[in-house]
């Protein structure tokens, strides 16, 4: 929020200019590079350590490095203008495969993939239809459905909340799946749905996230599900501070506040990244579209020692039954379609 728009845009323009220069030089190398195979990854807004979406991607890359000993290059986007530059730079410097994390990278991937037809590109959360691009998407509505069920099962007030990051179809997809899951258990349940903003800044505003969560608690919600990247850190903190439950997103976030995080809607971005890297190395990498859902273990909910006490065996049994029904097609989770 800035009420000093002229001044502020001036500042951000200065910053854009400086970071742009930095972008050209700062394509960092994690460890020593090997000559022939060089994977690279470009993170989205929110940053590599958002404890959510991007962090999951980074864990996949780290795992690949650990298993194979092959170092990878990485780049964190801090403003929109850097994307093309960073990718082109990585491609020019000999990257064999570039994984672009996040739907906002689609146009950059399309542009750079055309310039470098010999380089393999994998984009996550978007579809780019080019002969050297692989598009990996997830059926987030399925994991959100299970989390919605969990929320409705533990809620005492019959009111649950949802905090989204940027208001985009992908996040609406989470929200819709969640709502279906909640109503599957409790048709009378009330759901409060909030979006943090309409710009990419909405992925990194924990203060706003906490405020949104508090507003939902104030209206009676006792479980809140976030799909908001780093903004979600604030959502979960607010839930902990107010003695309510939160549901994490993308990564397993149960460990953040044991006893307060009910579960996490997992999205195996790490598996996708690991898979893209290793297939590219083995030569089995194929362009085209890939959609991962519950049957492929691409999405799911997390259960570990941190939330064992919250997700009782009774709840777990219901979730497992619903999961089996979704896999077998008995329950059909509707997908959000942009109008």
């Amino acid at each position, binding site marked *: *929020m800035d009420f000093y728009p002229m001044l502020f845009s001036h500042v951000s323009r200065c910053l854009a200019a400086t970071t742009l220069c930095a972008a050209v030089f700062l394509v960092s190398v994690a460890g020593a590079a090997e000559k022939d195979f060089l994977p690279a990854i470009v993170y989205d807004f929110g940053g590599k*350590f958002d404890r959510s979406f991007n962090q999951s991607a980074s864990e996949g890359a780290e795992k690949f490095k650990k298993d194979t000993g092959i170092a990878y290059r990485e780049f964190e986007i801090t403003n929109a203008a850097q994307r093309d530059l960073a990718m082109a730079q990585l491609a020019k410097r000999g990257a064999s495969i570039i994984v672009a994390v996040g739907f906002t990278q689609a146009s950059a991937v399309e542009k750079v993939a055309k310039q470098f037809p010999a380089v393999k590109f994998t984009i996550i959360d978007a579809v780019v239809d080019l002969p050297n691009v692989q598009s990996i998407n997830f059926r987030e509505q399925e994991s959100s459905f299970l989390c919605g069920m969990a929320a409705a099962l533990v809620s005492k007030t019959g009111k649950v909340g949802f905090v989204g990051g940027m208001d985009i179809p992908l996040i609406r997809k989470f929200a819709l799946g969640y709502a279906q899951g909640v109503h599957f258990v409790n048709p009378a349940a009330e759901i409060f749905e909030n979006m943090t903003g309409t710009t990419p800044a909405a992925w990194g505003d924990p203060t706003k996230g906490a405020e949104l969560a508090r507003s939902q608690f104030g209206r009676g919600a006792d479980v809140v599900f976030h799909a908001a990247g780093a903004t979600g*850190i604030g959502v979960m903190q607010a839930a902990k501070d107010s003695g309510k439950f939160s549901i994490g997103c993308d990564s397993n976030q149960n460990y953040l506040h044991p006893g307060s995080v009910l579960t996490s809607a997992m999205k195996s971005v790490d598996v996708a990244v690991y898979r893209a890297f290793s297939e590219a190395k083995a030569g089995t990498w194929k362009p085209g579209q890939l959609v991962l859902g519950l049957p492929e273990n691409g999405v799911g909910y997390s259960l570990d020692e941190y939330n064992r006490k919250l997700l009782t065996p009774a709840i777990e049994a219901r979730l497992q039954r619903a999961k089996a029904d979704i896999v077998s097609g008995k329950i059909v989770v509707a997908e959000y379609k942009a109008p």
Partner: protein
Amino acid sequence: METYTLIVLLMAATIRMATPLLLAAMAGLFSERSGVIDLGLEGKMLGAAFAAAAVSATTGSVWLGLGAGILTAVALALVIGYACITHRGNQVVAGMAVTIMVVGLGPTLGLAWFNLGGQTPQLDGAGQRFTSLVWPWAETAREMPLPGLLYAELLSGQNLLVYFAAALVPFSAWIFYRTRFGLRLRAVGENPHAVDTAGISVNGLRYQAVIISGVLCGFAGTYLSTAASSGFVRDMTAGKGYLALAALIFGKWKPWPTLGACLLFAFTDALATRLQGVALPVVGVVPVQFILALPYVLTVLLLAGFVGQAVAPKAIGVPYSK
């Protein structure tokens, strides 16, 4: 009753959101009334937010964090002071320079020290954050009708820095209008030559004002990273420094009207947060985009329609030379 609860919760959110604005605006008030434009508010806050979170994370004490936040903000304020007061540099440029420097420096140091992509570790240990203080009988009072909820939600349950900010307004007003220091401070912003003729050091007074501004920015930044959230995130001030400056101008460089402006800005923001997806009477559910634009629209309307001319301190922005 439902509506009443909503209104009280809205007021509580307004107070939480107004606190950093108010602290920063009071910081700006001291600096600007002495004749030094304070465009470094954003940078000083951000620097303090980073220092407070970093020190609180490593030492486990939020009080040491607050100390570090204040020291950092004062150091940055002195940089501005040295450039603008001692060397009569351009105040706008110096303030912006400090802000831009901190925007880059915070995440860079964070990356080097904590290896978490420019964030600080999450503060969740005991004593690492300013958490809300619950006043006696708040839970019992909540059950009571009208005044009880007000007591439980508004007076109780805020953190220490909120009370500090609230006390700061009457205290600043007292300093400005009832003390010798305040009189001199106002005079040096209006007519430094007269102050100099009276045998009082203009530069000395301005340095004092700039240091006070630094201390208050330290509180504002510490509030952001250790009370409102739990740790430092890149660009976490998100323009609040400039917003505070706008509130200061809106409040005509006076403590009480500035408080009003801060509360108004915070209220529109809190309203925007809460109106999303709520069905309003007559119009029904309003689209998210409109709700998010509401604070800006309201501010423009108020600025255009209801606030008279704001007269700045006469000597603001003018370096003093004999």
